[in-house]
């Protein structure tokens, strides 16, 4: 029963010990230790997923306020994604972090963030979730400001305060929910017993909206997205990878939990909140793509892309039907793998060449063909070209949108998805094109193979393969989810 605690406590304690250890252990020892810890944690997660049959109430914070862990299918998906991305990015960083200082600190917080994310996935009620949501912010912002440059520190703080702002907004809602729900334990179909038509109900719609906005901050929702493009370029590449692939997904997870497990879709379906939410997602999708399209710095471009892609997911959530929801979950996985690959390749490029702007990277494909191939494959996935992961998820999303009971958004959604896919192609592919086809005036002689170390390429490869696999065998996942999803709606 206490198994579930292991993948949470182990990395947190390990990270803490690493931080508290005052001497410098030497690079080699450090990476080995961290690697072992990561692997153990991964294993523990799997063990926990397999071995846990029932929830665990750890203790009560105060009356009716238990710290409670439980595992359902959502947890499984998110925690698997977390484990994979964290392991890959972790190994990647063993090389990458060579050119940064204070690695020990980095790994310490990395491990802690890992543990916290696991906890977030396993959280069985809103309070537990909120607790780890806050802790996630606190343990991950050191990753952002790791490089210690002025911009990085500012970016870290920005990330911190935006996230806290969001967290507090959602806390506002939690206060009210607590007093109007029997329990805050995540229950499929929701726990709120108020009709949206009543006077209280209209207030709770407002609360729901505030909570969506609040948790949406972490997921880079439109009015509060500004931290994302600042934080990503400032952070080291592997950190950006986990940030973009997993940590922002915590926002998504939060919204799933709140909307589907607390409020219940029945409460929100057809309300102004859904409309507003849909509008916001569509706006953000489009805007994110546009901004990415215009952005010259590679990592920043990817960051905007994250903003846009996350909103595919949120769009799926906002539609509130089975297809769209499945699509969202698929996109969570697909985007998780793809975006981490993209950031890792970007990291590899920066690590080898030191260049950050897209227009400086002409001919990069000649220098780092393997990396760029991976980049290209996942880019295609993100654009949504079959048979990659992005295609399937977008298909489900579009289908869900078209069949959803959402009025005008039915067509608007599909259209925006399409346009955004085009834009995605527009901002991702130039690098491939310029990289492989630098043009006639490019001096081939100067270029030589510069592939990065194995420890970098293998994680990239793994993730690329996974992203393709999601596209090839989506049925495994959809089948796994079908029953569960139907209980949600």
């Amino acid at each position, binding site marked *: 029963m206490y198994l579930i605690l292991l993948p949470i406590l182990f990395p947190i304690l390990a990270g803490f010990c690493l931080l508290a250890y005052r001497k410098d252990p030497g690079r080699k020892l450090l990476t080995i230790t961290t690697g072992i810890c990561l692997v153990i944690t991964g294993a523990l997660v799997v063990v926990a997923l397999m071995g846990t049959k029932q929830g665990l109430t750890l203790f009560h914070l105060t009356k009716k306020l238990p710290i409670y862990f439980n595992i359902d299918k959502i947890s499984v998906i998110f925690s698997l994604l977390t484990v994979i991305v964290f392991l890959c990015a972790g190994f990647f960083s063993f090389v990458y972090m060579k050119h940064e200082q204070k690695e020990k600190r980095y790994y310490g917080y990395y491990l802690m963030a890992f543990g916290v994310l696991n906890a977030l996935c396993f959280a069985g009620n809103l309070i537990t979730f909120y607790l780890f949501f806050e802790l996630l912010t606190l343990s991950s912002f050191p990753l952002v400001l790791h490089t210690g440059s002025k911009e990085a520190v500012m970016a870290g703080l920005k990330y911190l305060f935006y996230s806290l702002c969001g967290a507090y907004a959602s806390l506002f809602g939690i206060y009210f929910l*607590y007093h109007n729900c029997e329990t805050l334990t995540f229950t499929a179909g929701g726990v709120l017993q108020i009709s949206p038509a009543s006077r209280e109900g209209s207030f709770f719609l407002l609360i729901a909206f505030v909570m969506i906005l609040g948790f949406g901050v972490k997921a880079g929702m439109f009015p509060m997205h500004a931290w994302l493009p600042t934080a990503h370029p400032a952070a080291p590449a592997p950190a950006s990878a986990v940030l973009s692939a997993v940590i922002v997904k915590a926002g998504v997870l939060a919204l799933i939990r709140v909307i589907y497990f607390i409020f219940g879709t029945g409460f929100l379906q057809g309300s102004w909140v859904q409309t507003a939410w849909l509008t916001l997602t569509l706006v953000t999708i489009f805007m994110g793509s546009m901004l990415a399209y215009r952005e010259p710095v590679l990592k920043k471009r990817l960051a905007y892309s994250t903003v846009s892609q996350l909103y595919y997911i949120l769009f799926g959530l906002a539609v509130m039907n089975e297809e769209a929801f499945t699509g969202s979950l698929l996109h969570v996985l697909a985007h998780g793998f793809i975006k981490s690959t993209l950031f890792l390749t970007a990291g590899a490029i920066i690590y080898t060449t030191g260049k950050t702007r897209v227009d400086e990277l002409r001919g990069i494909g000649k220098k780092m063909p393997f990396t760029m191939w991976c980049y290209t494959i996942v880019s295609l996935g993100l654009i949504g070209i079959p048979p990659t992961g992005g295609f399937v998820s977008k298909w489900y999303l579009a289908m869900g949108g078209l069949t959803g009971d959402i009025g005008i958004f039915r067509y608007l959604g599909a259209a925006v998805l399409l346009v955004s896919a085009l834009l995605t192609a527009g901002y991702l592919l130039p690098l491939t094109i310029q990289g492989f086809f630098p043009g006639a005036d490019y001096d081939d002689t100067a270029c030589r193979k510069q592939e990065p170390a194995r420890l970098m390429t293998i994680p990239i490869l793994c993730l690329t393969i996974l992203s393709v696999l999601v596209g090839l065998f989506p049925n495994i996942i959809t089948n796994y989810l079908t029953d569960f999803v139907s209980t949600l709606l």
Partner: protein
Amino acid sequence: MIICVILIPLLAGILVPLLPFRKRCHKEIFLEGAVILNSILVWYLLLHHSESTFLLAHFTGDLNISFRVDGMSMVFAGLVSGLWPLATLYAFEYMTKEDHENTFFLFYTITYGVTLGIAFAANLLTMYFFYELLTLVTVPLVMHTLTREAILASRKYLYYSLGGAAFAFIGLIMIIVYGTTTDFILGGVLDPLKIGDRTNVLLLIYVMAFMGFGVKAAVCPFNSWLPQAGVAPTPVTALLHAVAVVKSGAFAIIRLTYYSFGTDFLQGTWAQTTVMIVVMFTIVYGCSRALKETHIKRRLAYSTISNLSYILFGAVIMTPLGLTGAITHLAFHAVMKISSFFCAGAIMHQTDKRYVHELNGMGYKMPWVFGIFTISSLALMGVPGLAGFISKWNLAGAAVDSKNPLAYAGIACLLISALLTAIYMLSIVVRAFFPGRDFDDGPIQNVHDPNWKMLLPLMVFTVFIILFGVHSQPIVDFFYDVATGVY
């Protein structure tokens, strides 16, 4: 017995300059012994309290000076007596760098007795009496350094406090005239027959008295004395200006609201609205000023201003739950804030640095101090698992429960303030632990953690912050019982 615990510190304090101590450590042992003894007595008293009232003296008319142990006094006295020995221990170490130790400890120890007097006061007059005394005995502590700044600060403190007391006094008169008794009775003592149609006047007086006591609790616009009083030695700032004095203000307001005027009388009136708006404004105002402030202690002082209004916010919700929230925050905030103040004091003591921007990279030089500071910061922000979350939870819960739209807005204020708290506290932490790439630790090479006398209190506080955060059930239950008048 009750009078004993008030008199022992008084005596001990007076003896400090009179007794010929040969060594400093003798004095320390004497003082610490007296304080601990007193705390033990207080706890004994709390655990074996009787309902009876101890009458010290008749004052005039049917007014008298008398003491009693009830729920609220248990909370406040328990809190104060728990913190005082630790703070005294800390003060020994801190005061090695300051002059006129004897005067300092004289008043510092006397204050203990006076604060207990406030806690144990059985009626409004007694409380008022000790409330005034508290002002007087703490003034020398504020002006301790005798710099121009300190003088100005103490002057301001004195004007504000005495002025506030003057208006609180009017409230006292009202209770004398319109109440059945001045004793504290949960639910209020106003006599509806005597009031007649003077409800509005009484409400006005309540608001005035609220603001009067509110001066000590640093309610906006009467808060500017508190940051200024930060010139006092840190043990004073920490214990008095984060706990004893300012909490007495809050305590007095709770007494006034719940035990004298009574919530039935005030609930839903314009007076409640007014004070709630004032309190909410203060919550946000204090935080935003803290944000602007770069002097560490002043920043913490502004934070105190904001947090005190949390307590008051709970109090002016005027439901048992609200009172529970208020009491919870009263107790928890004391621990959190004293902890962060002591950290600031430790920093000042070890390095003489007092501005936020001077703290770059100190986290690695003083890991304990900054570690504890971080924990208290997180607690103040209200991160779950630490004490601050619980108290905010209770406050917000009460606000939700009250079904008062203004209180809903108050929750928003709480959260805005939490965010601002995060900004001003964490920016210190971030500076200390993440000094930036081009940081040179040469100038602070020799900085290290202080010795055990300073660290021990800090650790104890931290343990409590976490303990209260993780397992608050029993104590919150107790607070609820207090608020509903079981004790």
